[in-house]
């Protein structure tokens, strides 16, 4: 990338560089991605197809989750060469994945200039106990969650955007739906609690009382929440949006299906017009077969990725 930091940025007011302001910048980019589709891509060519289809960002990775699942082995951060090629190919934000707890992979990704890091359960975790302290970075992070406890722990660590874990690489949307409903249910439950019960609930969830109280008062997470994990069709995407998500990640669902560009465009339209069944019918028409996928029920416990993360 040519625009390292030679750009004429004005001197920044130190007062404004307080933690909450830099957090505003991190959550702010996630707010700009809302109502959009973030697509997994494994090379510059796919990134260009994704951008042309209307993706609001791309996730650069070496193998899509379905292939990681099929091929097995340790899944790690992508080669910087690949990430740089993708950064150079598109004007939309580029995200990349690092392993859970692998703060050095995160440092490397930050230095490459990626716009968001996904500390992702799709890669093999590097730490069985700890997540990255994301406040220490200037680049924002997105993390996966299955329930409110996980989501609030990640936000405490500095995640500026959340997504459901779903079950990546399956093309089966059930787990994503389960996680969206679980988080919404737990927030509604907390919203109806008096303080005494909230203190106990915070202990149960393993989260800070203040963050829980703030979330309960707002009625939603304090950061943007996307759906991810198993979304394969425009209808899947609209389902997640109607359930209250701010946008969707589509991983294996696009480039493992037939006619990726058409499917990608259809999912983008479906996320904008998620409440308009006529548009949904139109964009769902004649897309060819979706990825074959695997049902979540057919997975062995050890094959499930969503259990990773603590």
């Amino acid at each position, binding site marked *: *990338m*040519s*625009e*390292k*930091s030679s*750009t*004429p*940025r*004005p*001197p*920044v*007011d130190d007062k*404004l560089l307080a933690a909450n*302001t830099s957090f*505003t*910048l991190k959550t*702010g*980019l996630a*707010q*700009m*991605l*809302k*109502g*959009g589709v973030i697509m997994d891509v494994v090379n510059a060519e796919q990134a*260009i197809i994704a*951008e*042309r*289809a*209307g*993706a*609001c*960002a791309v996730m650069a990775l070496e193998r899509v989750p379905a292939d990681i699942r099929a091929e097995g082995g340790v899944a790690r951060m992508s080669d910087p060469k690949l990430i740089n090629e993708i*950064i150079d*190919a*598109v*004007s*939309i*934000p580029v995200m990349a994945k690092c392993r859970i707890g692998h703060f050095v992979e995160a440092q490397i990704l*930050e230095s490459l*200039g*990626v*716009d*968001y890091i996904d500390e992702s359960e799709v890669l093999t975790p590097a730490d069985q106990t700890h997540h990255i302290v994301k406040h220490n970075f*200037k*680049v*924002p992070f997105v993390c996966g969650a299955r329930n409110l406890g996980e989501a609030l722990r990640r936000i405490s660590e500095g995640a500026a955007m959340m997504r459901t874990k779903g079950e990546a690489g399956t093309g089966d949307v059930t787990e994503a739906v389960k996680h969206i409903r679980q988080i919404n249910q737990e927030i509604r439950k907390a919203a109806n609690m008096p303080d005494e019960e909230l203190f106990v609930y915070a202990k149960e969830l393993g989260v800070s009382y203040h963050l829980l109280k703030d979330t309960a008062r707002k009625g939603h997470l304090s950061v943007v929440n996307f759906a991810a994990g198993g979304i394969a069709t425009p209808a899947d995407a609209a389902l997640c949006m109607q359930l209250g998500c701010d946008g969707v990640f589509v991983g294996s669902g696009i480039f493992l299906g037939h006619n990726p560009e058409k499917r990608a*465009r259809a999912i*983008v*339209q479906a*996320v*904008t*017009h998620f409440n*308009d069944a006529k548009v949904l019918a139109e964009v769902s028409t004649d897309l060819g077969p979706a990825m074959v996928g695997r049902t979540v029920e057919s997975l062995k416990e050890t094959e499930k990725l969503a259990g990773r993360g603590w």
Partner: protein
Amino acid sequence: MTKPEVTIGVLALQGAFIEHVSHLQKAVATAKAGSKIASAQISVVTVRTVEQLSSVDALVLPGGESTSISLIAERTGLLEPLRDFVRVQRKPVWGTCAGLILLSDQASKAKKGGQNLIGGLHVLCQRNHFGRQTESFSCNLALPFTNPYDVDDLFPAVFIRAPIIEQLLDDSTARLGALKIEDNSEESLVVSAPRLEADKDDATAVEIICQLPDSTGTEAGDIVAVRQGHIFGTSFHPELTPDVRLHAWWLEECALPFVL
């Protein structure tokens, strides 16, 4: 006497549109007695279709990804109606960040795929001027018109992968395709909005509303807010901070005078 009804739309194809809706509603709710805002019955709606667009008197184009928004607009059949709204009917519009890019007659730093612009604002806008997300920043801007009572009261501005206004294209010969694209390399690819019949009788000048200090902090640098009659554009995000002064100012001074 019944108040005149005014509908303000926020383009909701992709991006941070809810934030604008709630800021506009808050600006309406806190309007001072005697203001134009208080004299009208204002409703704020999201706009995703041609029918919705035709029902609004003024429109905010939010931040988001400008390529996504323009592609979705095109496929929803909204691109031409938006051009008509801005450049033929000349209804009041405000673009923030991606919205500013879309309203510009020209934008630079597009990648291979190019990009469709709505156009109307006679400027050349440079996308991602400051670089990638780690170069995003916030700073206080002097926008004295948002608070006539205290000119030292600065406005908090958040710049996220922000564009700037690189050049004013007031001279009509220099606009809309008439400007030669000198450097066709990938990094500096310039895209232009198409010329419309209605452009001929549009001679409104572009007014610079705000410039950042340059990198030394002493002189005026990059242009980050401009107004050209009914079109207002900011490269920062007033919808991301709790301050609704700019939304109130836009309604009062830019939108309602054209509507009421």
